[in-house]
């Protein structure tokens, strides 16, 4: 074999291998999606939305408490986390810019974004659950908000920086004070990007389970009171899936299907918004 033939052969082998690994990766991932859809469609019925959790064996058993609890937990965490994240991101992009303090905050929030969420859970347990004496929805909200803030902060920072400075200068030249420039010019220009960050942040905390295990804990009954333990789809799913009862496991799959459709939907929506913005 000549040197050239050998090089061409090696080339072929390597390209084949990397195409194969793409196939392996996609194969595994689609296997999971298939399992979700196959089990999920099978397990979903009206009972799930009408009834609350019941002991195994009961016909009238559902996930209503978990669905509503999930919406409340994620909704309130969003209401707390988004404004704080946007304010901090605004500081980085508009005031701090390249200053030392701003750079440190950027680095720390990058690290926070990948910090293990179970550690955040134990921190919130120590500062809220222990002093209160019991698990509560509020503790879950705080844990989710802590996870969400760095995500919103970094996307806001990035997106505000993309707004051309000529826009700011034009507004300043008209005599507008800085806060008005930020609120009426910069925020408006970065609207789509910030919204995408918010959607991705919601999608991220929507799937969190570990920090909820010992903050909001769980509840088998519908509950609107955040100062009490509260059910969530993820924790309910964990409990049901690891239980030995077949009908509970089935409800676990229903929860898994609903949750993953919700999260994939948010991700796709976020991408579409960005895409539409780029297209213009």
């Amino acid at each position: 074999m000549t040197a050239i033939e050998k090089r061409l052969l090696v080339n072929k082998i390597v390209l084949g291998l990397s195409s194969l690994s793409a196939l392996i990766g996609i194969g595994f991932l689609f296997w999971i999606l298939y399992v979700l859809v196959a089990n999920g469609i099978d397990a979903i019925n009206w009972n799930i939305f009408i009834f609350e959790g019941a002991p195994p064996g009961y016909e009238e058993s559902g996930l209503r408490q978990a669905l509503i609890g999930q919406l409340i937990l994620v909704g309130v965490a969003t209401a707390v986390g988004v404004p704080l994240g946007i304010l901090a991101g605004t500081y980085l992009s508009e005031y701090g810019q390249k200053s030392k303090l701003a750079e440190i905050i950027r680095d720390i929030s990058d690290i926070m974004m990948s910090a293990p969420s179970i550690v955040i859970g134990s921190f919130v347990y120590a500062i809220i659950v222990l002093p209160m004496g019991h698990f509560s929805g509020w503790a879950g909200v705080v844990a989710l908000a802590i996870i969400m803030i760095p995500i919103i902060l970094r996307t806001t920072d990035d997106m505000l920086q993309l707004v051309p400075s000529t826009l700011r200068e034009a507004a300043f030249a008209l005599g507008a004070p800085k806060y008005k420039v930020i609120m009426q010019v910069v925020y408006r220009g970065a609207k789509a990007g910030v919204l995408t960050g918010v959607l991705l942040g919601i999608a991220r905390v929507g799937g969190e389970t570990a920090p909820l295990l010992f903050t909001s804990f769980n509840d088998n009954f519908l509950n609107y009171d955040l100062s009490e333990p509260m059910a969530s789809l993820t924790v309910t799913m964990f409990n049901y899936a690891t239980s030995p009862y077949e009908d509970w496991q089935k409800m676990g799959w229903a929860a898994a299907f609903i949750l993953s459709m919700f999260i994939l939907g948010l991700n796709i929506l976020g991408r579409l918004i960005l895409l539409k913005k780029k297209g213009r």
Partner: protein
Amino acid sequence: MTLLIDKLFANATRFVAVAILLLVAWIFTVLFQHSTEAIAAFGFDFILQDKWAPNLEKFGGFAAIAGSVISTFLAMLFAVPVAIGVAIFLSEIAPAKLKSPVGVSIELLAAIPSVIYGMWGLFYFVPIIRDIFGGLGIGMLTAGIILAIMILPFMAAVTRDAMNTTPDILKESAYALGATKWDVIKDVVIPYAKAGIIGSLILALGRAVGETMAVTFVMGNVHKISLDITAPATSIPVTLANEFTEADTDLYFSSLFELALILMVMSFVIIALAKFYFLRRTRKVK
């Protein structure tokens, strides 16, 4: 009046931004405070002892720490070659028509919650491992494979982004000299993107260390070090997830908090290393 609002707004943003720094410091302080009892009781032995016996009030974190390290190592072993292969496919080989759908589905699948990977692993993957290796099918090996699948999309996407930063002109000049595609990948793309690739691998490593739910399903939570990677084991996040709500004594709690502190320090160091050392350069590209 306007001046006042202007000042208030500026200070509000600065206040929140600084509060985030303080929050991180607060997390470390609280974890440390709650660990003091365990630190006082066991000292450095906590890290080296593998006896974890709540009924005897004896706690050693070695089994959990070693479990985290081994399962993460296995995950990297399985995931790195495949992830780099996927990244090469996406950045250099895939025809334009395939690039975007394959790339997007890889990214979307990184968004699937880990509790779902755990369920899939328990019901569909554990039986396969059981059939092949015998035993329960639950343990370090299964956890390593599930972790590998979870970090794969993330690693592949970031590696692809790093590879995509290679300027076309470098590649074109190599092709003009008669290089094959593999020559270009090995001698131009990989060296150019090296820092970014290593950074993405370390970042994925950091994620694998802290990953909780997926592993909790398939690890078994047995505080024992075994040379057999198909035997049930535990890791720091698995121990925390399983035992936090069961802990009934102060010392038990304190030991769990010490584990949480160790996990936080581990992941902080790993991620900081990736960020500061390797990802600085490619950071603005994203």
